[in-house]
């Protein structure tokens, strides 16, 4: 059973927060870094405390470290060598394999995220703007007393209107599928993956093979930890809306094109497999139904949900494509940054998009596979295309929509998204945080 009092809450609970901030941190020396970890660890929420949270809770804090961060804090080289290669190398070093080339190349990434001096991220969720400002001010004041720790960059995460459903800047409803972990008392909704073994996301537990895989050493450092893949993607809302207009004459047609790209209707998340022609709000918001479908039997040719649509690429549901979907899952956390672009406004060129952490136990098998193969492999199911949203597309964009009598190609002049940041972090358990704090 997962040690809920030792696991950071981040991947397992969703606090009642409306706003968040990521602060990317650098340590000048081990003493300052360890002191910071020691001081912050006190307020890091565990799954247990956050699950039992009361309505009066105002803020939630999580801490994660890069490989350089662990080294800087004083983890010895023998231990460091036991961490998996993707984490040791960092995301930027693996750009070619991940498909982060051209405009998506790490040379163009923002927020100093590729800096060798990036050591940690502190993720703050706050109930409201006032609480966020209070916390950030307090952290900034704290850093004045601990000048060996500095903030390399910050990113403010805030929901965009309309607030009646969770969505990103393009307007797609989000958080419709998330892995469920065995033993936490939550049942997967119909059609979702069966509950996962804790070891798929947390180190030190049996995974889907039934065994506990080799873990980084010492155990006190790795147990109850997870790896996080951070990904910042800029969303080109103007290009997206132009694309819809160029490929649909009426509002209804444009909405259908938007749905074909995703595999779900934009505002409700209702799956195209179950309602291919018209959005169905009731279905979209019914958790018992909105994942209750497959492709192999219900839509083998993709006439309802195109084979190249985002949800069909990233969650294949089809045993002809993969027999180990249960080993490709990630827990996604994150949200939108940047200003809202109103429906009728021209693109103002502002930087807006999503900044997401993908939690998993094995960066290579889980996160890197999803990005390098299902998002970016043009050979995926013979399509010669990439994922419309998660794919790294340089220049023009194209997608095939199966249609009788012949398939239709939708085309755009520019990609809708650009990768503008990324890094690998290790999210330790609470005992591990204390261990790290004690290194100096």
């Amino acid at each position, binding site marked *: 059973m997962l040690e809920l009092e030792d696991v950071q809450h981040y991947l397992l609970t969703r606090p009642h927060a409306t706003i968040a901030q990521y602060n990317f941190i650098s340590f000048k020396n081990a003493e300052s870094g360890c002191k910071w970890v020691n001081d912050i660890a006190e307020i890091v929420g565990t799954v247990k405390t956050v699950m039992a949270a009361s309505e009066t809770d105002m803020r939630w804090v999580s801490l994660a470290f890069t490989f350089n961060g662990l080294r800087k804090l004083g983890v010895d080289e023998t231990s460091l060598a036991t961490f998996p290669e993707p984490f040791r190398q960092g995301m930027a070093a*693996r750009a*070619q*394999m991940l498909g982060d080339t051209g405009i998506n190349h790490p040379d163009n990434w923002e927020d100093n995220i590729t800096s060798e001096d990036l050591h940690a991220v502190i993720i703050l969720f706050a109930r409201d703007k006032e609480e966020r400002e209070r916390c950030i001010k307090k952290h900034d004041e704290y850093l004045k007393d601990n000048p060996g720790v500095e903030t390399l960059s910050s990113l403010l995460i805030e929901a965009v209107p309309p607030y009646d459903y969770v969505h990103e800047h393009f307007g797609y409803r989000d958080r419709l599928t998330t892995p469920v972990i065995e033993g936490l008392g939550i049942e997967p909704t119909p059609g979702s993956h069966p509950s996962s073994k804790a070891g798929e996301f947390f180190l030190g537990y049996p995974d889907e*093979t039934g*065994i506990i*895989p*080799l873990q980084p050493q010492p155990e006190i450092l790795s147990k109850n930890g997870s790896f996080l893949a951070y990904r910042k993607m800029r969303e080109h809302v103007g290009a997206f809306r132009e694309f819809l207009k160029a490929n649909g004459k009426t509002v209804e047609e444009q909405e259908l094109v938007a749905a074909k790209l995703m595999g779900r209707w934009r505002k409700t998340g209702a799956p195209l497999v179950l309602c291919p022609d018209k959005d169905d709000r009731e279905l979209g918001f019914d958790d018992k139904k909105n994942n209750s479908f497959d492709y192999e039997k219900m839509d083998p040719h993709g006439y309802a949900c195109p084979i190249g649509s985002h949800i069909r690429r990233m969650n294949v549901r089809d*045993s*002809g*494509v*993969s*027999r*180990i979907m249960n*080993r490709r899952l990630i827990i996604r956390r994150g949200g939108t940054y940047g200003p809202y672009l109103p429906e009728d406004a021209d693109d103002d060129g502002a930087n807006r998009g999503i900044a997401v952490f993908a939690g998993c136990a094995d960066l*290579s*098998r889980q996160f*890197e*596979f999803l990005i*390098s*193969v299902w998002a970016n*492999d*043009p*050979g995926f199911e*013979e399509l*010669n295309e990439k994922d419309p949203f998660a794919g790294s597309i340089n220049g023009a964009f194209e997608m095939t929509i199966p249609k009788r009598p012949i398939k239709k190609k939708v085309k755009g002049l520019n990609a809708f998204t650009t990768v503008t940041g990324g890094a690998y972090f290790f999210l330790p358990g609470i005992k591990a945080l204390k261990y790290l704090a004690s290194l100096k």
Partner: protein
Amino acid sequence: MSNTLKNGWSTPAAIALPKEGYFKKEDGRYGPVFPQTPANYGFTVIVKVKPGREDAIREYGKTIEDAVKGSPNVLAPLKLHYLRWVLFDVGSGLHFMYQGIFDTDFDKYMEDAIALFNSTGVTTVFVNLEGFPDDWRTNINAVVKFFREHQCPSFLEYGEYPYVSADEIKKALKLKDAFSAMLDQMQ
């Protein structure tokens, strides 16, 4: 596939490959990526057999036959054209050759492939080979390493209908059947 469109499936093509098996080193998740050739993706793994295990290995031919008979789509995720298993001895002891031709970069789907081998009982055939990791059930990286270490890259590959995938061939044959059926109805 893009290559088909570019060069045309009707023009046979051959490609000579450098010793490493690739022209430009591009790292995948498990090591250098081997390129697609006119004969698509593939590998040739050659490993020495442990003494006295020949019959055990030959038995597995039947195991795979039965698995595919029982569930014809069992190997579908591997996007295979052909598998060839050969046992031979040219004076240096018995060797096992495993040659596969398929339409995906094998490395990309390595974990899927190993999970499939495990679920169909194929993996246990490799236990009869020298150097196969003892912890193969749990240590995927060691299994991948084993395959990569024993992979002998081709120095020439040829395709009579280059770069065409198994799915495209199956679609073409289905179309042919459909046209035949249509013509029958026109009689």
